Structures are given as C-alpha cells and as structure tokens.
C-alpha cells in the first residue's frame, strides 16, 4: 500500500517538474510547480516528517508561489513562442548535461548502496512538531534567532531594490 502511494507521488512530482520545464506559458509553469511542491509534501509524510510537510505547503506552495504568481501578473510577460519550435544545439547540450549529472549521482549511489541506512525504528517519533520544537528552541536557538534577522533584512532589501529607479540621462 505505502509503496503504491510512493510510486504515485513520485510520478506526480517528476511529471509536474517536467511539465514545468517544457510549458510555454509562465503561469502554467508556476501552477505545475505548485503540484510538485504538494506531492513533495506527500513524500515527506511518507517519511513521517509531518512538521516539514505542513511547513512545505505553508511556505512553498502558499507563500513563495503566491509571490511568484504576483510577480508574473505584475510583469505581464508573454509566452515563449519560440521554445522547441526548431532544434537547437543548446537544447541538446542541456539534455546531455542533465543526463550526465543524473548518471553521475546514480553511479555514486550505486557505489555505496550497501552502506545506506535501513529504515529506522524510531522514524515515527522524530518528525513530529514536539520533537522538532524541542530541538529548535534548545540546541538550535541561535540559528533560529538569526533567521528572524535574515528575513527582516531580506524584506527591507527587497523593498529598497524594487523601489530603486535609475534616473534617465
């Protein structure tokens, strides 16, 4: 049962990632990316990481993708009409490079496949909000506070950059 669920989510994630890359319309690409994020959250649930699954949907599928869609609507970008109309050397080279990267990673995974960890018995206990909060507010308190400063700096910087206008002449 859990294996079939995994196969469904994996096919959904990879299919939507491919559809995002080859779609001409920018808004459709963004919506395919949302499907990808949600199926990744499902995969996190299969790994018993409930906290991260919820955070993934809230932050990625919720906040970041809404930001992307706002920017797309604001910029009023047109479709890429010329995508895949004719064969380009660039596409071929990009495909070769991607295949090389995936082959390299598979080769290195196959080399260490007998050293990879088996499924842990306490997998169900570590992914809960209690466990995550317990570590986050004791051992990782300083990085957590740093995150607040980082986000504030990012918001202020984004406002500054987006308002900036080069004077003509």
């Amino acid at each position, binding site marked *: 049962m*859990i*294996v079939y669920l995994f196969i469904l989510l*994996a096919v959904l994630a*990879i299919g939507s*990632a491919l559809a*995002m*890359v080859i779609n001409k319309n920018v808004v459709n*690409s*963004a919506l395919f*990316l949302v499907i990808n994020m949600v199926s*990744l959250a499902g995969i*996190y649930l*299969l*790994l018993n*990481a409930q*906290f*991260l699954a919820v*955070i993934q949907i809230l*932050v*990625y599928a919720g906040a*970041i993708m809404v930001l*992307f869609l706002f*920017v797309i609507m*604001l*910029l009023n*970008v047109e479709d*890429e009409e010329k*995508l895949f109309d004719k064969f380009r050397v660039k*596409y071929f*080279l*990009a*495909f070769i490079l*991607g*295949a090389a*990267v*995936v082959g390299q*990673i*598979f080769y290195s*995974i196959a080399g260490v496949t007998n050293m*990879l*960890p*088996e*499924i*842990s*018995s306490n997998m169900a206990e*570590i*992914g809960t909000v209690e466990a*995550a909060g317990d*570590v*986050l507010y004791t051992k990782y308190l300083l990085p957590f506070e740093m*995150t607040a400063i*980082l*986000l504030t*700096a*990012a918001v202020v*910087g*984004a406002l500054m*950059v*987006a308002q*900036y206008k080069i004077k003509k002449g």
Partner: protein
Amino acid sequence: MLEIDWFLGISAIMFSIGIIGVLIRRNAVVIFMCVELMLNAVNLTLVSFSSFHGNIDGQIFVFFALAVAAAEAVVGLAIIIAIFRNNLTVDVTEINLLRW
C-alpha cells in the same frame, strides 16, 4: 517496505530536470522557479536521510534551508522587477547590463 535509494533517485532526477530548465529557458522568472525546484530536490535528500537515520538534525537543517529559500525568493523577485522596470524585458538573452 520503503528503501532510501528510491528517495535519492527521485531527488537526483528532479535536480537534473532543474538543471535542464535553467539551461534551456529564457524567461528569468521560470529560471528562478527551476532553481527552487533544485533546492527542493536537495531538501528531499536531507529529509530522507534524517528519517532513515532516526535523527532530527537533518529536518532542522531543511527548516533553515526553507527560511533562506524564502528570503532568496523575495530578493530575487525584487531584482527581476527592478530589471523589468529599466529594460522592459525579463528575457535573459536581452539583459546585457553587465556584459561587455
């Protein structure tokens, strides 16, 4: 039962799709979305190792990576808006401000 190899496999495939997208697309917003896809693929690797080892540290790392990704998305999209206001395009082949 689940094996960790499968999760690493999906992660590798998604990362490569992100690389191909960055290389072939010309719209800056779509290139940015492909970068987010690659970040997600790496996050999946971290979460699967964390769960299979039974150690929460990897998931906390993914939490911080999410926060950094949010900050990065905000700043990157602001830069794209600034470029659009000055050049009226987001096609990366026509943006040549830093090219000589």
